[in-house]
């Protein structure tokens, strides 16, 4: 976990986001029906994708931690979950803005948005657990078990809510070529942002653990 790797990641993420934003606002055409609000799409959807990837990583590192008991895996799992949570929040904040112009309401109990809300509640509970059990030896194991259980729950929550709800996200979106290019660049930009955040968060966790050890209260 070298500091330099982090710096490189951050520079890449900043550059990619600058390009993505320029494409979103200057290059991509304005959508006919929704107008400028449609541009939220370029960050809304990538945030959702990156969040799924990060939550999967949190699950994976939690399994690895229980198996190998290597503290690094715990820091990685924690960082992935935390950054994933930030992206869930981004999806939840941009979703209603989209909904306001697409459906005329800030919130509709639409399946995908609703399952993100449940996801947000689940992972908020995970952080609460981390807060409450801070400084206790068994925290890492407890959190790992919870992350695994929560991850198994995600597809079932999604299935249940999609049966329960009625209005559906479009199954397949057909994008005009300039829109597709902009979307792909945004996807890369958000991925890099997620990677940079997760890297820095992991490094911070490791440094905190080192400090705690040095001061003798771990």
């Amino acid at each position: 976990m070298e500091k330099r790797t982090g710096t490189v990641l951050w520079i890449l993420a900043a550059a990619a986001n600058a390009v993505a934003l320029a494409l979103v606002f200057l290059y991509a055409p304005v959508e006919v029906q929704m107008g400028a609000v449609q541009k939220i799409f370029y960050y809304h959807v990538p945030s959702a994708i990156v969040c799924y990837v990060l939550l999967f990583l949190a699950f994976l590192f939690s399994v690895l931690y229980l198996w190998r008991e290597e503290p690094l895996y715990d820091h990685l799992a924690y960082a992935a979950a935390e950054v994933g949570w930030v992206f869930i929040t981004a999806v939840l904040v941009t979703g209603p803005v989209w909904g306001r112009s697409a459906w005329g309401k800030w919130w509709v109990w639409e399946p995908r948005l609703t399952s993100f809300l449940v996801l947000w509640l689940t992972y908020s509970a995970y952080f609460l657990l981390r807060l409450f059990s801070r400084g206790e030896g068994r925290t890492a194991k407890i959190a790992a078990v919870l992350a695994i259980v929560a991850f198994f729950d995600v597809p079932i929550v999604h299935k249940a809510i999609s049966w329960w709800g009625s209005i559906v996200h479009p199954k397949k979106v057909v994008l005009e070529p300039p829109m597709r290019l902009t979307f792909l660049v945004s996807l890369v930009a958000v991925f890099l942002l997620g990677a940079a955040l997760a890297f820095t968060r992991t490094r911070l966790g490791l440094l905190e653990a080192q400090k705690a050890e040095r001061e003798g209260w771990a």
Partner: protein
Amino acid sequence: MNTLRVIWVLFEKDFREELRRKENVASSLLFALLSLVLFAFALDPTRVNLNETGGGLLWLVILFAGSLFMGGSFRKETENGTLQALLLSPTDRSAIYAGKFLLNLLFLLVLEALLIFFAFVLLDFRPGPGLPALAGSWCAVTFGYAAVGTLLSALLAQVRGGAVLYPILLFPLMVPLVIAAATLTERALSPRFSWTDPWLRLVLLFDILFFTASLFLFEYAVEE
């Protein structure tokens, strides 16, 4: 002793303890009745037809009262210092989980039977010929609730503030079961219930998945 015998011994020990102490059972059941009465005040049963919307409502009560009971199932072992003894016993760890799970399952089923009775008397809840369908689907939902509830109880037994955290951690995971319970209750009370209902299948999937995962993860949840 084989594993089944161990599970039975552990179950019997907890069962007897709960009957003698009475406080956990009594407070959870009373809490359930109290919430039911408060729901009646909040919704006005003269205007709301509970036979249509009752399933979700009753399941909220089960969720709240059940979490009150299940949350304590491992905490009392930590408080009495008996968790160590349990863990030291030369047996498969998952047997400890299974014993606690059975007791929680039994409590929830008793709670549900009482709730249906009280809803019948107080809120005009009339399952009628749909009672077998209602019982079957509620048993399936309860199984999943007890499976996750018991695991989280073990997980939080040694965490500071575990009692506060327990429902906050548990309820988001229960979202699929709550929706399923509400929908299945509504269908059980109507003629269009079928035992191959996709909701029932989803609940069974949930049950199998989380019971198996809990048996496996329990060891990590209580390990020193």
